[in-house]
């Protein structure tokens, strides 16, 4: 059955020693990763589901789903819609709250020999802070990713990530609470992504991840109704890759801190494009749904690419666009 096995792992985890000389490790603002590949928040559950398919220690890091102070029930059904080369989601950050998250999800995940990045959400700056304060007590967390795309209830529901002052202040407050690597995740739904990036860098972020989903909509012409119960949702998948690449490229030119690139990455070639545009590491999101082996396949593909191109350290690729 050609290259893909009939059953199980079609990536055929290469222990190929001829490729062993490639150094895939990267440092993402203080987070040491054995390779530049993590998963995008919310697309990988708590990791357990995918551990049925491959060993999580093949990845550079695992990023958890978004966690908030109290449980969030999320939005009504339907929560997803397929669109051309992508999908819309309005899950609404459903999660059991930080206490349950720590006892049920984290305790397992932090035993998988892979750094864990905890994605943090909140409806106000004080909620972000309270989540981080609680997580500081858990020794095994490697880094935080602040999802600042959430609506800010103190500010009329506008997303923190669309206003450079709000982005600055929430980042700065969290910075004061933790010495761990702090990654701030930007929303693409802004006029000037560079301005927001510079604000969070100035506030003390160690790295920036981008992009979150692009606001979109799907309509059922027969029923004359929106497909999603919430009417609008976040677009992800290959459809948004050109937007994401452009934003990584622009932000790379405007900040010094390293970037975690994501948005439609399905293959090692996609990942390399993000690195050339300026990303130090990459995250695989929606592609996990299409193929549960996507993330380790990207790791293997990166190793092969470097071997082929005679690259000894993958960090050489970052920003190497000619």
């Amino acid at each position: 059955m050609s290259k893909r096995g009939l059953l199980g792992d079609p990536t055929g985890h290469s222990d190929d020693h001829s490729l062993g000389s490639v150094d895939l490790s990267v440092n993402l603002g203080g987070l040491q990763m054995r390779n530049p590949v993590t998963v995008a928040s919310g697309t990988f559950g708590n990791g357990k589901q995918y551990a049925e398919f491959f060993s999580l220690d093949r990845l550079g890091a695992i990023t958890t789903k978004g966690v908030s102070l109290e449980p969030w029930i999320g939005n009504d059904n339907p929560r997803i819609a397929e669109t051309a080369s992508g999908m819309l989601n309005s899950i609404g950050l459903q999660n059991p709250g930080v206490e349950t998250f720590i006892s049920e999800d984290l305790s397992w995940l932090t035993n998988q020999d892979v750094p864990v990045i905890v994605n943090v959400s909140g409806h106000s700056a004080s909620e972000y802070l309270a989540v981080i304060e609680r997580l500081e007590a858990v020794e095994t967390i490697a880094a935080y990713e602040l999802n600042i795309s959430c609506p800010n209830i103190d500010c009329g529901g506008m997303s923190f990530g669309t206003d450079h002052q709000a982005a600055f202040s929430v980042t700065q407050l969290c910075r004061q609470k933790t010495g761990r690597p702090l990654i701030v995740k930007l929303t693409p739904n802004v006029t000037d992504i560079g301005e927001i990036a510079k604000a969070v860098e100035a506030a003390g972020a160690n790295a920036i991840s981008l992009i979150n989903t692009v606001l979109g909509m799907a309509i059922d012409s027969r029923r004359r109704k929106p497909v999603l119960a919430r009417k609008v949702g976040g677009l992800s998948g290959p459809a948004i890759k050109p937007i994401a690449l452009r934003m990584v490229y622009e932000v790379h030119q405007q900040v010094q801190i390293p970037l975690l690139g994501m948005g439609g990455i399905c293959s090692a070639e996609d990942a390399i494009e993000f690195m050339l545009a300026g990303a130090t590491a990459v995250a695989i999101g929606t592609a996990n749904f299409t193929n549960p082996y996507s993330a380790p396949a990207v790791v293997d593909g990166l190793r092969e690419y470097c071997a082929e191109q005679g690259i000894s350290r993958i960090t050489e690729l970052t920003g190497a666009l000619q």
Partner: protein
Amino acid sequence: MVNAEVTYRACDSEYNRLELGSDAGGPKQEIGIVIDNGFMAQTIAKIRLSAPYIAQNTRPGQFVHLRLPGLEAHILRRPFSVYAADARNGEIQLLYQTVGLGTEHLSTLPNGTHVDLIGPIGRGWQPPRDAKRVLLVGGGLGVAPLYSLASTFTTETEVHLVMGAQSADRLICWKPFSTYITEPCLHITTDDGSAGQHCFTTKAVKDLLEIGAFDYIATCGPEPMQKSVAALAAEHQTFCEVSLERRMACGIGACLSCVVNTTSGLQRACVDGPVFNAQEVIW
């Protein structure tokens, strides 16, 4: 009970009886190969795939998550109940209705096509072991996950099936059921009266429940129908399971796109279901 003038295309019967149980293997990716694929009625087709792992491990009520070959721009997999599985030959069958782009495409796949599957997925039917009298209720393609369930009961159990469709030409695949269910226990309904009783399935269910008690009811089909059946079951204090459809992205419990509101909170249709205890579902 069935209108003799309606001609049904043959469904192959004699598939192995599936075992209930929880000792089966979990979901894996398996590249299935199309053995046979074709329409049985207007808009209703059946595909037979070679997929040994899934065939050996599927329990009644579970499903596969299928990636559309040659339609890579359609990034989401499509969920389909396993209609029948033959562990010995390593084959599974799916019964599907062409309702959109993906299912239309599925109906065009020639024999030999490789199809990327994840399966078997989900919590299947959990009938009480000692059930003496059971009632299966399938609306439209909802009969798909009921066929393998029907096969699990021994001759000790009296199995009734209420099968409903809009019209006779959409009423397919009752024939294989006759392997497991004898004629007086087959209750066919059509919305237009072109076969069987001229009524909705729920009317037939109501009548049956009034005549005699059942130990177990299993239903799959349009959600309003399942809801009505669940209400009737509750009225008659009968244990009832429903099989719910939700839009699914990952299909393995990771993305939370498929949630069902239950008395124990939001549950995922893909892995906590698709079969739920009807009394626990908040409709």
